[in-house]
C-alpha cells in the first residue's frame, strides 16, 4: 500500500456545471481529464492523502480583501465562493495541523482580481489566495506570508492587493509582459513606498524551458524566501507554462512543475490558470500532488513529450541570467530604497487605468497612501468605471498605527456625495467592513 512521506490534503472542485461561456477556456470541461487521471491514479486512496470537501467563503471573508462594486453579490457567483472556500478549507487544515501541506485544485481562478472589483478580469473575479490568506491572518494570527505565483501570466491582482504590504512577499514568475496578458510584471515593479522590495517580478522570455524555470526558482526565488523567512508559503500554481498550453508560449513540463513544487515546498498550493486541458493538466496536477506528498513522480511524463518541444534556446538562458542579476540586486537593495521612499513624502499617489478583459469594463483609479514610518500605511482609492459607479475605498492595514487608523476613518467619513456614489472602509485592525451609499 502506497503511503506518503508528507501528509497532504486536497480539495478537488472541478465545478462541472460552471463556465464563463460555453467555448471559453474557463469552461466545464477544464478539469474533466484531470479528474479522470486523478481518479485512475487512485490518488485519494494513497495513505497520507486526504480529500476535503470545500467550504464556502462568506461575504465578510471577501470584504477583508476586496472592495466589490457595488457589492460582493453583484460580482461573484456561488462558484467563486466555493473556489475561494476550497483554498480556505486547505488553509485551515494546514494551520489546524490536520495535514502538513495542501493543494486546492479548484476553479475558477483568482490571481488577476485586484483590490477593487468591478467585474471579471483575466477569468478572475475574486482573489482566492488573498481571501484565504487574510482569513488565516485573522483566524490564526499568521503574519509573514510568501506567495510564489508560478502561473504563466503575471499575477497582477495579487500584486495589487499586496503592493503596500511589507508582511507579504509576492514573487511572480511569468512570461514577459511585452508578449502576454496582462502586460505587466516587470522587474522594476517592486511594491509601494512602505513595502518596496516585497514585490518581486521575474519576467521570462517566451520559449523558457524546464531548465530556465527551475533555474529561476533555485537561484532567485529560494534565496529570497530564505531571507524573508515567511511563516507560510503559498504557491499560486498556474499550469500554463506547459509546452502544450494554447494561450502561452513557454516550454515547461509536468516533470518541471513537480520539481519546482518539491523545491518551493509550499504549505498551500492553489490552482490558477492552465488551459491545455488534455495534454498538460492531467499530468501536471498528478505531478504536483506526488511532489507535495514526497512520492516518486519520475514516471509522470506527457505522452508526447519530446526534447524538441521543451527546448530552451541559448539566448533565453542568457536573458534569464540577466534577470537573475537585476532581481537579486533589487532585493538586496530594498532597505535603501525603502528608506529613501519613506523620507520623501507624507503621501504618495498613483493613477491607473485598469481594463477588465473578461467583462469588458474600463476602470480609472487614483490611489493615495499615507507613507507611514510606523506601519504599512492607510490607503484610499478613488475608482470609477464605465458602468458609471464612482466609489471611494479606504483600507486600514492589519497592523496600522493609531494615526493611520484615524486617517482612514476621517477619509471614509468625509467622502461626499458630490464626488462619490458609495464609500467603503476596510478596517483590518477591527476586522470590520463599512459601506455607505452617498
Amino acid at each position: 500500500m502506497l503511503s506518503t512521506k508528507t501528509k497532504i490534503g486536497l480539495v478537488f472542485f472541478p465545478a462541472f456545471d460552471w463556465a464563463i461561456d460555453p467555448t471559453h477556456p474557463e469552461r466545464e470541461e477544464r478539469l474533466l481529464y484531470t479528474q479522470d487521471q486523478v481518479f485512475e491514479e487512485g490518488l485519494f486512496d494513497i495513505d497520507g492523502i486526504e480529500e476535503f470537501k470545500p467550504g464556502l467563503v462568506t461575504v465578510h471573508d471577501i470584504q477583508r480583501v476586496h472592495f466589490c462594486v457595488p457589492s460582493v453579490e453583484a460580482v461573484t457567483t456561488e462558484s467563486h465562493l466555493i473556489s475561494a472556500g476550497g483554498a480556505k478549507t486547505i488553509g485551515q487544515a494546514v494551520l489546524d495541523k490536520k495535514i502538513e501541506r495542501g493543494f486546492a485544485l479548484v476553479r475558477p481562478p483568482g490571481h488577476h482580481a485586484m483590490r477593487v472589483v468591478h467585474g471579471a478580469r483575466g477569468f478572475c473575479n475574486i482573489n482566492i489566495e488573498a481571501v484565504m490568506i487574510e482569513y488565516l491572518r485573522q483566524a490564526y494570527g499568521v503574519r509573514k506570508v510568501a506567495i510564489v505565483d508560478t502561473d504563466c501570466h503575471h499575477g497582477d491582482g495579487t500584486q495589487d492587493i499586496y503592493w503596500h504590504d511589507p508582511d507579504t512577499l509576492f514573487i511572480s514568475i511569468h512570461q514577459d509582459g511585452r508578449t502576454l496578458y496582462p502586460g505587466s510584471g516587470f522587474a522594476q515593479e517592486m511594491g509601494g513606498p512602505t513595502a518596496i522590495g516585497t514585490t518581486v517580478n521575474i519576467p521570462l522570455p517566451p520559449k523558457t524551458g524546464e531548465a530556465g524555470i527551475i533555474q529561476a526558482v533555485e537561484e532567485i526565488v529560494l534565496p529570497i524566501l530564505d531571507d524573508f523567512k515567511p511563516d507560510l508559503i503559498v504557491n499560486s500554481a498556474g499550469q500554463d507554462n506547459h509546452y502544450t498550453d494554447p494561450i502561452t508560449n513557454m516550454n515547461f513540463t509536468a516533470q518541471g512543475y513537480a520539481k519546482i513544487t518539491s523545491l518551493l515546498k509550499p504549505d498551500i498550493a492553489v490552482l490558477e490558470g492552465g488551459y491545455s486541458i488534455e495534454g498538460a493538466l492531467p499530468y501536471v496536477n498528478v505531478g504536483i500532488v506526488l511532489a507535495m506528498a514526497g512520492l516518486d513522480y519520475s514516471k509522470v511524463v506527457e505522452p508526447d513529450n519530446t526534447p524538441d518541444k521543451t527546448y530552451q534556446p541559448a539566448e533565453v538562458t542568457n536573458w534569464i541570467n540577466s534577470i537573475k542579476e537585476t532581481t537579486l540586486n533589487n532585493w538586496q537593495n530594498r532597505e535603501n530604497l525603502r528608506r529613501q521612499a519613506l523620507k520623501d513624502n507624507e503621501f504618495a499617489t498613483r493613477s491607473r487605468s485598469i481594463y477588465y478583459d473578461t467583462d469588458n469594463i474600463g476602470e480609472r483609479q487614483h490611489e493615495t497612501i499615507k507613507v507611514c514610518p510606523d506601519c504599512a500605511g492607510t490607503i484610499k482609492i478613488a475608482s470609477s468605471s464605465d458602468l458609471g459607479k464612482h466609489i471611494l475605498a479606504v483600507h486600514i492595514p492589519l497592523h496600522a498605527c493609531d494615526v493611520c487608523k484615524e486617517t482612514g476613518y476621517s477619509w471614509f467619513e468625509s467622502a461626499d456625495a458630490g464626488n462619490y456614489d458609495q464609500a467603503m472602509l476596510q478596517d483590518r485592525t477591527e476586522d470590520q467592513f463599512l459601506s455607505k451609499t452617498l
Partner: protein
Amino acid sequence: MIIGLDVGGTHTDVVLLGASGLVRELKVPTDQSNLFETVLTGLKRITENIPPESITRAVFSTTLTTNAVVQKKFPPVGIIVTAGPGIDPALFSIGDHYYTASGSVDHRGRELEPVNPVEIQKIAQELASQGVRYVGVISKFSVRNPAHELAIEAELKGKFEKVFLSHEISGHLNFPRRIATTYLNAAVYPIHKEFFSAVQQSLENRGFQFPIRILKPDGGTMNFAASIDYPGQTMLSGPAASVMGAISHADPNSESLVLDIGGTTTDMAILVNGVPLLDPTGIELAGFKTLIRAMHTRSIGLGGDSLVSITDGKLMIGPDRQGQAMAFGGSHPTPTDALAVLGKLPKGDREAAIRGIEPIAKALGLTVEAAAHRIFDEASKIILSAANEMIDQINSKPVYTVHELLEGYQVKPKEILVLGGPALFFADQLKTHTSMKVRVVPNWQVANAIGAAMARTTCEVTLFADTQLGRANAPEESFSEAIDKRFDDKKAVEMAFSLLKEKAIQMGAIEKNIEMELIENQQFNMVRGFFTTGKNIRIKVQVKPGLIKGNDLYSDR
C-alpha cells in the same frame, strides 16, 4: 419456497420462506474450518421432510471468500499490468507474480503505446513455469478502452485455467483498486468454485435441483454461473444480508439507520427511502482497497461477547473478544453478562455472570447491578456515536458540481432498526440516548437469512461515449458501438438501460422485477480552439438493491 442461508461468525442462520412468510427457521453453529459441513448441515435440516420440487432456489451468504482474504490463503496468482504516464506501476505490486509490461492508453481511450506480444509471451512462460494457473490483467484506462487487456488475454489463451480482465470486473476509474480487485477475484476463484460446485453436487445427490444464488455485499444476488466470473463479489456479504432483512420494516419515505448487533461486532448501514446507501468506491478488506460494489457500512468491535475491562480506571468495551460470555462458560466479562446480571437473559448462568461483573463494579465503585447497567449504557453510547460518525462522514463526501455542493443531499435518519442476537435488549437502552425512533426488526434473530432469501439481483453498467472519437463503450459488457455526431446523453442513457437489463437477466433477474435507475449522467462539450468538436458523455445506471415481490417465490427459475 426459497431457502436463505447466512453464515455468521458464530452461528449460521437458515430460513425457509413460503408465500405466506417464514415456514421454518433454524441456527447451526458455524465451523469456520469446515464451512462446507456447516452449510450442508443447515441445508439438510431446513429441507427435512420438504418435497424437493417445492423449493425454487437457495440464496447463500457465506464467509468463505472473506475468510480466505483475511487469512491471505491464496493460490499463486499472476498479475500483468500496463500503465503509461503517472505513478510508477511497480509501486502497486501485489502477490508474488507481478509483472509490468509495455502498452499504454490515455484518459480518452486512445492508444499511446502498443502491447508487445513477445514480452507477454515471455511473461506467460515464466508464470506457467512457476505453476501459476490464475492470471489477472489490468491496463490503465482499460475502462475507456479495453483493447490492451484483450490483446494480452489473446496471448495468454490456453495457457491458464482462468484469466480475469479488469475491465470486466469494474467499470470504475481507479487503476490501483482495479489491480487489487482483479487480484482478489483470481485469488478466491478456485476456492469459491470448488465450494459451490460441491454444494450443488451434494444437493443433487439428495434429489434437489433448485438453482443456487449468492448474495453480494451490495445487497443484491447473482446466480452461480455469474459468480464464477465475479467470485470477488461474494466477499463481505454478511452485513448486506442483515440490511436486506431490515428493509421490509423500514419507513419507505424517510431514512433509517440499521444496527446489526452481533456477538463480536455491530454493523451499521443507512437506508434512504428503504434503499441501502452504497459505498462510492468499494469494499476495503484486510488492507485491500477494492472496487467491489458494496453497501456503505461501518463495523465496530462491539457486540454481546465483547471484552469488558477497566483500563486506567476507565470502563472499556471491546474491540477485542475473548470467547463467550461468562454466563455461557467463558472466562471474561461481556455485555451479555451485564444482561444476565440484570435478569434480562432467559438462559445462561447468572451466578457466573455476576462473578464476571464483580471486579468491574468494584473498580467503578458501584454495585454489581449498577455496573451492569453502566456497561449496557456505555455500549449503547459507543454504538450511537460510531453511527453519528458514519453519518457525518457520508455527509462530508466531496462533490464536484456547484449544484450538488449547494443543494447537496444530507443524510438524517429518523429511525433506528435493530437486529441481531441482543437486539431486543439494546433497543430500549438506545432509546434513552437518541431522538430517533428505535424499533426491533421482527424475526430479529434470523432477519439476515430472510434478507438474503428475499434479495433481488442487482448490477451496474457504466457507459462512456465520445462523439469526437465516434464510439460508445461499455467495456464491462464487452460493448462498443460506432456513434455519430448527433449522439447525446439521452441516447446514451437509453443504450445504458438496455445493456443493464440484458446484464441483469443474465445474472438471474426476473424481467418484471428490474427496477433501473440513472445514477450518473454527465455530458461535456469538448471544445478545441473555439469550436465544439464533440461531446464527452459519462453514464452510470444500476438495478438498485431491493426485495423480490411475494409472488416471485414461485415464478423464478
